[in-house]
Structure formats: structure tokens, C-alpha cells
């Protein structure tokens, strides 16, 4: 039994089946390559190898060409992000205010490195160049929410908060069944 929450977020439909039909709305022109890749990432949260193949066929260019462009830009990722994607800002202001330490704390607490996703698919971390909230440095994003004035203790609290929520959900689920 899956709770409502998971239906909405956790069990995101990550199959590439819907991509071909979405591709039809794009003309077969090279200039659409980046908008298409953005669409794929929007739909699937990352760009799997199958999708690269589909895009290449649609635009009638080599898959390596698509991959080459996709890897050039920072926006695109090639492994699925966690349920709570963490982005740590490492812009200049954040660096001066200790963004590196925040990054390290996330990595240590979650036991993964920059660009990875935890085994339970709950969290992923990545570094971003600048989210443009420099006055709130150091900044971290969890999902779409910006957290300003981060500190190592806040990192711990945040992760603990998510874990407590999950535990609560698990117990409620258990309660439903009994």
C-alpha cells in the first residue's frame, strides 16, 4: 500500500514511454535540441540513455552528438535524483561564507558524494554554481525550497526532519494495516 504522499512524489512516472509522443510537438530541427533535452529532464527528472537514443532518432543526428551537447551543459543530469534533491550553492558569496562546509556536511550525513543519490533514493546532492540568493549565503536548495543562512547544525536538523517525517509516514501506514 502506498501512501498519498508517495503517489504524488516518490512514485514519479520515470518510464521513457511518454517521450516519443512528446517529441512530436518539436520540429525536426537542430535548434530544438536543447529545448527537447529540457523537456525530457522536466518529464523524467534526468536524461536516461534510452531518451538520448529517441532524441537522436527524432532529430536524425548521432546519439553521441546528443550526448555531447547534453554533457556540455550543467543543467542536465544522467542519473535519477533522490526524492529530496539537495543542491548546495557554491557561488562566490556562499564560498566566502563557508558553502564548502555545508556541502561536506550533507555528503557526510548522507554518505554520498556530489552528484550521487542515496541507495534508498531519498536524497541526492549536487553542487550548483549560483542560485542568485547571495545575500542569504550560504544557501542550499532542497527540492524547490531555498534555505538561506545554512549552518552545519541546520543540515543535521533538516535531514533529521525528513527522516522523522518518513518514520511517521511508515508508522501511519503500519497503523492502517493493523
Amino acid at each position, binding site marked *: 500500500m502506498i501512501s498519498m504522499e508517495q503517489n504524488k512524489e516518490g512514485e514519479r512516472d520515470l518510464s521513457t514511454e511518454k517521450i516519443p509522443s512528446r517529441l512530436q510537438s518539436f520540429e525536426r530541427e537542430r535548434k530544438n535540441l536543447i529545448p527537447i533535452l529540457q523537456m525530457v529532464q522536466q518529464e523524467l527528472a534526468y536524461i536516461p540513455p534510452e531518451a538520448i537514443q529517441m532524441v537522436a532518432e527524432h532529430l536524425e543526428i548521432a546519439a553521441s552528438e546528443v550526448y555531447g551537447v547534453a554533457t556540455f*551543459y550543467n543543467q542536465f543530469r544522467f542519473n535519477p535524483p533522490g526524492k529530496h534533491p539537495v543542491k548546495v550553492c557554491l557561488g562566490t558569496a556562499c564560498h566566502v561564507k*563557508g558553502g564548502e562546509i555545508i556541502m561536506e556536511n550533507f555528503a*557526510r550525513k548522507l554518505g554520498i558524494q556530489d552528484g550521487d543519490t542515496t541507495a534508498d533514493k531519498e536524497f541526492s546532492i549536487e553542487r550548483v554554481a549560483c542560485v*542568485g540568493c*547571495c545575500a542569504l549565503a550560504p544557501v542550499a536548495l532542497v527540492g524547490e525550497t531555498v534555505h538561506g543562512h545554512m549552518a552545519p547544525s541546520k543540515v543535521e536538523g533538516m535531514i533529521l526532519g525528513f527522516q522523522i517525517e518518513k518514520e511517521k509516514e511508515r508508522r501511519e501506514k503500519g497503523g492502517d494495516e493493523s
Partner: protein
Amino acid sequence: MNPDLYDEVRQAFTTLTEEAKNRRNAFRESPLPKIRVGMATCGIASGALETKKAFEDALAEYQVKALLKCVGCMGHCYAEPVVVIENPGFPPILYYKVTPGKARMIVKSFLLDGDPLFEHLLGAMEANDLIPPVADFPRFSREKKVVTEKCGLIDPEDIYDYIASGGYAGLLKAFHMRPQEIIQEVEDSGLRGRGGAGFPTGRKWGLAQSAKGDEKIVICNGDEGDPGAYMDRTLLESNPHQVIEGMALCAYAVGATKAILYVRAEYPLAIKILSKALEHAKKCGLLGKNILGSGFDFEINLFQGSGAFVCGEETALIASIEGFRGMPRVRPPYPVHAGLWGLPTLINNVKTFASIPLILNNGSAWYRAIGTEGSSGTAIFSVVGDVVHAGLVEVPLGMDLKTLIFDICGGIPNKKHFKALQIGGPSGGCLPSDFLDTPIDFDSLKGVGAMMGSGGMVVMDDETCMVDVARYFLDFTQKESCGKCTFCRIGTFHLLRILDRITKGGGREDDLELLEALAQDVQKGSLCGLGKTAPNPVITSLRYFREEYEAHVKEKRCPSGGCRTLTAFYIDLQKCARGCDACVGSCPVEAIFTTRDRKKGIDQALCVKCGECMVACPKEYSAVKKVSPPHLAPVVERHKENS
């Protein structure tokens, strides 16, 4: 434009302005109190959404009727969320750091009981007898808001709000002028491109106009990749129509019918607001076919940049729109002659376009009167880092750096001292305090080794290590190098490697000479601005902070304590209070242990040097100390029975 159509165009525009005025008057003359919440990205990050919700709830709960309006950002990021309240009988009042709790209090005490809550307000927006006006603060009085004047006052999602405040009037004026006259006006204003290089805008437009080709393209460069700068984002989020109007004026002058607005995909709110703004402008007949019946066609398409710093360079930006890797190519041919799909293409920055409607409305002489002889107008900076009033600041060019940092932005917080100013992002340089009298303009800054750049300014206090800052920027440019030129690709890699080992205590005798030589080679051997300017942070910090580099290399010591490998934290047992546990919980790695006499010690093997214990240690003890080099930290053995 055909003079026969003048009346028709004017009529079409009057219909729009009438509608706009009616809407504005309906809002203004309403007897209800008006609440304006700043809702740009920085406001939302500080909790503006929660604040707005709290206002809505409190208004419903206390049964107070009021008009709630979302506006953009005034640039006071240090004070976000910012709320302006117009309560009949009072001047408009600016409240700062309005938390949900404060919002409830304002509704109850101010709107219901008429107490303006003096302890929570920043000031009144206009002169009056009751409340001190914000204009008394240097943050407001020394600034000169020209381009950002309307930001934070109008609703960015309402085109009529922009029109009612004089928007799109420049377009009407332009239709009565010959394209050549418009270009002349821009040239006379002395406006220089605000993207960083400072090329005269009028001259660029002239080149685009005379370029051969039936189809021409205008591109607005909103690929603000400089880490630490967000002026373009704020403008696009707070007043998108001013940029759109500027683009339309440009297209009319140079004879283009198509434009692309290139915005970073990392700015989702700006993209949302812009899409809406473009749609509204189209609906009002200010974009699309036959604008206002003038016969002038102009359309703007939004393109989301995928995050590559090099795409700020115009030929790389063009390559990315064409669907390729964003790699620059050799110029000439310049984009003005052969740009996007080989067509003549004119590229200007967001702030440049946003200046155009003002120049056309007020005349070139008015614009020229602001700023200095060689650099007219204002500059918008995002001043961040170790500064009290961080945020967006617009000042006339020619103001000195000291006024900007100390008067307007309030100086350095926490009783620390100014050390350096990083200006111009990864392409700029670090300036020490000796240069604080330097006037802010294109030529003066270039003269001292920095550059205007797009407007990022990072203030650093005496705890920032300049070697580490140089390493940080190299790390950024090395990752962002597109890889086309060998010197940029491999040169920056080695610059970074040398800086890396210096900051980790592995610096060699000849490293500084090596850095200098390599930096010059990278400058000479690179094609585009990225490679040409990438060594700037190293060159300027070596020039102005050489003794700091020497301390790292010769003594393996970081004088400002910024390099973590070269520092250590320890607890001064003379100062540590017996039985106090304040630091223990703050340590993320449990490196703090209790000594035999119930004081605390730090296990150096576990410590990650985050400095949290230093923050946590009560002020009256201040027992946590930082030293460099790390071997100076006294060794405190872990208590056996305890472990």
C-alpha cells in the same frame, strides 16, 4: 513609420493608457489599506510566501479588508521579506524582515488599532511629520535608482501597472522618429554595454542597422552566469516589460523583426514572469504583428540557457541557441554581420535594454548628465559577502568604492575589518583597501586590474584567505572552460593544481613565479573572454596580497585562517568553563570530548574545521581558538575512562 498612421497608433496607445490609468486609480483611490509584499526570488527564499499567507489569514481572522499586492524586489535583500503598507491617514510605511508573526501583529496593531509599530518599521516612503522617512538612510539617499526605479513598486505580472507608470511610452515616441534618430539618441547618451566589456551601445546598433540582410535578429543576453551576481534576474523578475520595451525599440531602430530572450534555466521565477509578460504584451498589441497598428512586426521568443558560463560570450551563446555545444568561435565575422544562423545579430545585456526606454523618454542629455564623462549613466551592483546591507544597489558611475561599501551598504559586520573587494566575478580582480578611493567606471577599474563585469561585487573581511579565493575562482573557470583552446583547458587546470597544493600546505619555492608565468600564457593563448580573463583573480591577488601567498608557501601558514588544511581549532583550557556543554551539540562529527576536569577538548583527527564550536561557545568564555599552522594547537588527550 508611415506618417499617415500616426493618429491611429496614438489612438491605440491612448486606449491602453486610459485602461491602465483607470485600473491604477481604482487601486489608488480605494479607501482600503494596501499591502505590497516583495515577491522576487530572494524575498521568497526569505519566506515571503509564508508572510503573504500570514497576511491573508490575519486579515480574514480580524475581518480587516485590505488590498494585497505582490510586487518585485527593491534590492534590499538584507531586509527581506520587505512589505510596504499604505494605511489611510499614514504615509506609506516600509517594514523589514516581516515574518509571519510580524505580519499578524501588523494587521492587528496597525490596520485594526492604528499603531504603526515603530520598532518594526524601517521608515516612511515619503516625507511626513509622523515617521522618519527612509530617505534619511544612506542606503536610500546615496543610491540613484534609474533603471531599477520601478522595481519593487509595480506588479511585474500586470502590464497595466507598467503602462500606468509611463511604460511603453518610449515605443510610441520611437514610432515618430526615424530609426537613424533613435540610434543617434542612444549614441549621444553615451550608454555603454552593461554586460561587462562596455562597448558603446549606439555604435553597435549603428553597425547592426547598416549590416546587409533582410532578416536581422536581436538577442537579449540574460545568461547571468557570474556566481555572486543577480542584477539581471531581479530586473527580469521585477520589471520584465522595461526589458521587453527596450528590445522592441532596438529592433525598430536596427530593422529586426525577431528577437530571442536568453535566460538561465536556473531562474524559474524569471522565466515564469517573462512568459506571462510576453503573452500580455502580445494581447495588448505591443508585440507581434503590426504593433499598435504601426505596421511594425516584432516577436520575442524565450530561450532557456542550460547553464554554461561560457555562453555569456556572444558567439558561444549563439552556438547554444543553434543547438550545439556553447563554444566560442573566432571573430570576425562579428555577430553583427553574421550571427545566429548566419544572420546579422545584435546582442545586448538585460540592463542595457532596460536603460533604452528611459533614454528615449528623457532624452540623451538627461542620461549623459548622470555618471562621468567616459561612463555615463548608472551601474547596478549586487553587493554581497561580508557586508551589513547586502543586496542590489544602483549608483551613478563615478562614485568611489568606499562610499558604496561603507556608506550605502553599511560596511563590514561583526566588528571585523575590510580586506578585499572582488569585483567582476571570475573575470575580475581582488582589490585591497588602498583602492577604495577608485571611482566606479569602466576605465578606472580596468586601470587597477579589475573590471566592471556584469556587476557582481563580493566584499571580504579579514578572515577570508585571498589564496583560497583565487583557488575558488580558478576552480570555477576550470570547470566552465569549454575546452576549445589548449591554454584555457590545460592552463587553468594547472593553475588550479598549483593553487590547490599551496592552500593545502604543499606549496613549492618556485610556485609563485610559475603561477605568474602560466597566468600570462593563459591570457595570451585563449580565444574568448573566459580564458583571457580567467587568470585575473590570480594575477591581482598575487599583485596585491603577495605576502599572503608567501606565508602559505614558506611557512605553511594561512594568515587569515581561511584554508582549512592549514588551520586547527582548539579549546583554551584556561578559558573553558567547567561543566559547560555548549559546544558539544554543535559539532557535526562528535569530535569534542570531555577532559578529566570536566572541560572540553577537540579530537584533531576527527575535527572537520567547520567552526561551529567557535560560534556555539558563549561569548563570555570565547574559549575556542583557531591557529595556523595546525601544529600550534596544544594536544589534549582524550580521557581514557570516558572513551
